[in-house]
């Protein structure tokens, strides 16, 4: 990101909040009158980082950074970084759903991610995003819980998905959802077999070569089949402008946002607009849905590329 050089801002502005006569440096203007700074950019349909209004930031996905987990992914959208890891544990399924496994999804914002988060002062937004993520993943029915079953009524998998925010720079929900999906696509279910007591234990690959008599419970199903993958895009609303994929600075200046989640079949999984000074009319909602569809095509390509990069490595 190129640092802004200190070019003086002309003194005849009408957009600033009472600009005193004389010149002011760009960085000072940005801190003192953030809304006016952004509005000058929006009038030219561009943002301070030279992105057009409807473009999302550069996104990258790396699969498998956490070696000891069963599935993991590191996702970066611009500077926002999320690390997702899945650990599978065998447990007995619930009596009313003996053929299904279960999911436990947690989202953490450790102090590393933002100067406003400290050990005694947890981020207010963390439990909200955590709940939003579990609602979205369950509503979209991406994971078929029956695939997490081992022995009906006796053993099934409990998948613990933990997502850590490593750098909070706006659009946290989008990055977290993408990292969850990438981790699930990377997930390899470990091999299990029944031991002498009838309990299910995990078997490592090396042991198998020595003992061909070990009977495996789940030789065929190693990866989950993800049916309807949800992808999301957060847009800021300001007057008549719609800004896709905001940074943290943009989110602090313009408060109204809409998060649209669509699945790979084009169904609407969620439209999440929690209040905000700007009202969303139907035309705005339609435009946000259109931008999300564009973004889904980009994200599908990026996910497919990262999966093929893993196979080569």
């Amino acid at each position, binding site marked *: 990101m190129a640092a802004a050089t200190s070019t003086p801002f002309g003194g005849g502005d009408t957009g600033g909040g009472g600009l005193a006569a004389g010149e002011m440096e760009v960085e000072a203007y940005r801190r003192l009158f953030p809304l006016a700074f952004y509005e000058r950019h929006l009038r030219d349909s561009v943002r301070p980082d030279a992105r057009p209004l409807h473009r999302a930031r550069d996104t990258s996905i790396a699969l498998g950074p956490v070696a000891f987990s069963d599935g993991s992914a590191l996702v970066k959208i611009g500077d926002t970084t999320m690390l997702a890891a899945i650990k599978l544990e065998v447990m007995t399924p619930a009596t009313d759903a003996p053929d299904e496994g279960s999911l436990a999804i947690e989202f953490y914002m450790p102090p590393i991610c933002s100067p406003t988060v400290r050990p005694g002062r947890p981020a207010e937004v963390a439990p909200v995003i*955590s709940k*939003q993520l579990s609602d979205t993943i369950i*509503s979209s029915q991406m994971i078929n819980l029956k695939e997490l079953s081992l022995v009906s009524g006796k053993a099934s998998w409990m998948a613990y998905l933990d997502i850590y925010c490593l750098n909070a720079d706006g659009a946290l929900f989008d990055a977290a959802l993408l990292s969850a999906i990438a981790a699930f696509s990377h997930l390899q279910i470990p091999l299990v077999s029944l031991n002498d007591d009838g309990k299910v234990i995990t078997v490592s690959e090396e042991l198998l070569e020595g003992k061909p008599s070990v009977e495996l419970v789940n030789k065929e199903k190693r990866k989950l089949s993800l049916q309807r993958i949800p992808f999301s895009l957060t847009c800021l609303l300001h007057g008549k402008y719609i800004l896709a994929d905001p940074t943290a600075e943009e989110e602090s200046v313009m408060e109204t946002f809409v998060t649209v989640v669509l699945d790979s079949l084009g169904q609407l999984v969620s439209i*999440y*607009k929690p209040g*905000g000074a700007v*009202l969303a009319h139907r035309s705005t909602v339609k435009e946000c849905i259109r931008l999300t569809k564009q973004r889904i095509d980009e994200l599908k390509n990026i996910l497919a590329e990262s999966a093929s990069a893993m196979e080569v490595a």
Partner: protein
Amino acid sequence: MAPMEVDRADGRTSNQLRPLSCTRNVLHRAHGSARWSQGDTIVLAAVFGPKAGTKKEENPEKASIEVIWKPKTGLIGKVEKEYEMILKRTLQSVCLLTIHPNTTTSVIVQVVGDDGALLPCAINASCAALADAGIPLKYLAVAICCGLTGSRSVILDPTKIEEKKILAFAYLVFPNSPISVLPKGSLTEDSEPIEAGIITSVTHGAMPVVDYFNCLDRGYAACAKISEFLRRSMESQAPSDLTKTT
């Protein structure tokens, strides 16, 4: 597509809301309070404020709103935190925040009964309580829950049992239609009236995009009825406020 009539357990039609009731000034120590019920979903909201000072993260140039959500039973968890955040952001867009800068208004929501559509009920109760406390508002917010059944028809105000059975539902909040004549600039470019804009939308469950817009239409039409009810209940209780001792 003509709406198909759905058989609902309590005999309502798909467009029919549960009986609404709103009582204001129920708590005498609070600056404003309201009890709003929709069928068996009952929420009690109390407003204290404006009090001096804001919290550290809040902007001192504006008034800030603090929401505390108390569930009927159990400890406070992620569900309550999410409700608090949605309610806070909705009320922030409804209040005129620049009139009393550097103040905090606390809204405490107590769930008395939960039979579906809990968040819309809480939003309605909080707005009535804010009006009862005399906090300056831009408009009142009117909230409704629209459910989408498996046969793709929209039902309004589902009960808890209905919420579990249906495909998806959406909580929608619209601004209360202003009764005065609006200045010309208040219509959008497509000449959509300003009150058709959504303040808040929270959805659960996957639904086709077309059905979401159906929900918006039906929800908006039903909110007009709730707005009427709200206005009537405020007008009828107005004379008693003059004799309220502070």
